[in-house]
């Protein structure tokens, strides 16, 4: 536990330094850059690229959460039962679609820039959240549901006060999955001219500058690992509170 804490603090410090003070790392990356070439990416500030990257992921993921949870609620009501086999098939089949292919296919429809990336992240992010929300809402302990009905809660109250809070840890696991995928896919979004940290890696790949590749890769990797870790901790806390073992 103690070691984990130190490790996390060190990773946060390293990430902040890489993003805010990239100049400090010049001696470290210098041997990797081509002779006479630039060592530190300066074409745009790493901070603004990071913020734009995180904004894309946050916007797509929150939109996906809203839509996916709403759909999962509709499908788990008696009136939506006819759509349940279909929605299960769509989530199964949809998740076999490679995220990169979704991104590439969005370009002909939406053109280049942040738009197609946002749409691709949103569409792909829907599936894990929907799947987990549906699992969470359809596997509630029957005794609890019986008790909720017994104390006279109506459908809406049962949903808001019992079903959603109990399903929350499972839903959150889906959100975590989709955020991690979105962070990775957003990186590739820079090939369709979205402003993300992938720009640094791509610039390195195009000019054979390993220093850029390593710099961009480290920042994106640290962001992904830290965000994943934070969401796992949040999940554990919620799962403990709702007395339900977390899954996935």
């Amino acid at each position: 536990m103690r070691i984990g804490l130190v490790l996390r603090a060190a990773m946060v410090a390293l990430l902040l330094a890489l993003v805010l003070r990239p100049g400090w790392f010049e001696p470290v990356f210098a041997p990797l850059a081509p002779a006479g070439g630039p060592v530190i990416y300066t074409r745009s500030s790493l901070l603004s690229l990071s913020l734009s990257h995180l904004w894309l992921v946050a916007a797509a993921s929150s939109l996906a959460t809203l839509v996916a949870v709403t759909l999962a609620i509709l499908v788990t009501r008696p009136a939506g039962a006819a759509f349940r086999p279909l929605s299960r098939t769509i989530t199964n089949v949809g998740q076999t679609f490679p995220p990169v292919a979704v991104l590439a296919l969005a370009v002909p429809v939406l053109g280049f820039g942040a738009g197609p990336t946002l749409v691709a992240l949103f569409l792909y992010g829907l599936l894990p959240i929907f799947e987990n929300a549906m699992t969470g809402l359809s596997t509630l302990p029957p005794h609890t549901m019986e008790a909720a009905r017994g104390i006279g809660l109506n459908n809406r109250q049962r949903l808001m006060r019992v079903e959603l809070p109990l399903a929350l840890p499972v839903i959150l696991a889906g959100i975590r999955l989709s955020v991690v995928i979105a962070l990775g896919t957003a990186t590739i979004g820079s090939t369709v001219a979205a402003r993300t940290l992938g720009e640094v890696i791509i610039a390195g790949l195009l000019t054979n500058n390993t220093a850029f590749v390593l710099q961009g890769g480290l920042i994106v990797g640290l962001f992904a690992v830290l965000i994943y870790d934070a969401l796992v901790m949040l999940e554990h806390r919620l799962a403990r509170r709702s007395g339900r073992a977390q899954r996935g």
Partner: protein
Amino acid sequence: MTGSSDLRGRSPDLRARAARLPLSPPGILFAALGVLALALPFLSLAANRIVAGEGVSAFASAGVPTVAVAIACIAAGLALGLVRGAPWMRLGGSLLGLAGLVLLLSQGATTLLDGAGDFARVSPAAGFWCLALALMLLMADALSTMGLGPWRRGGLLVLLLAALAAVLWSGLLGDLSIAQEYRGRIAAFRTATWRHVGLAFGSLAAAAAIGFPLGILCHRRPGLRGSVLPVLSFLQTIPSLAMFGLMIPLLGWVGSTVPGARELGIAGIGFAPAFVALVLYSLLPVVANTVAGLAAAPASALEASRGMGMTAMQRLVRVELPLGMPVILAGLRIVLVQNVGLAVIAGLIGGGGYGTFVFQGLNQTATDLILLGALPTVLMALVSAIVMDILVDLARPTPERSR
């Protein structure tokens, strides 16, 4: 058997209301989507490869008799999909609709290209994709309510793939722009296909070769499990482009310092870094599912095998592995589908595969080149997923399949 069984046990009032409605609610959704799609441009005609095309409605894309037959097929297909509780009829409807769609696409492309200039290109537009989506959703919905066994699903998959191959080989779609892109790159396409298969399946094999022993070790030693699984899930979190990028300096260094490595083809660019990155991504599902699969053997079965005097090795091979096989195969399914998709990124670091076409197409804003890379990738991922699902089902000792 379809909707009504879901409603069993719910309020009698609702069941009665549902029984009165003879239509399938998803079918209504697909039909509405289909009707809407007919209002969108069906094909797009462009003067050359790069400029944006002009939309052509489905009704104006070919001669009147062809259009009438094709639209009748599509409409009849969607109408059959409305019938509730008759999944075979709905499946037939989706196939009929798809046949009409292919007819209109093929005849429309030929008609539009006629006299449109040497460089003219015809590609499917939004209307086509929406209709295809509606019909495929119909097929998926019909299949999911049928609950077919693994052998029948396999047979159906073979039939559908054969139909797809027949359509592609017959040259029916040869006038489409994507087919023209293909004809200009037949050799490159073949190389890319083999490279993509090599990356996806080769990394699966390597991950299995490393992951199975590691998973068995982790199963035996809980202490090892506690340190291996977090490291592997850490690797899984790293975004793919970063991972591929980080492999380049690493393997470049290995290639230039370790004697003999360069002769084996290990270098900072090309196949090796892509392959290693894919293997690293694959380890978590393989190891985690092997551990979970081995742990799934019931205590009574283990007790019995111990009582029979089996050694630890015999227990593993004859009891734990067979019982855990469905879970282990499910891990391989995750890996295979994931790697088929991730192998696209190899195109960015000179690793080959379908990604080459995707990123070339993105650079040249050539939509059809993007499709030439993306569609086979999606198909490969889908077929792998379906085949692996069938294998998982076959490995599961179900009561229906008593041996």
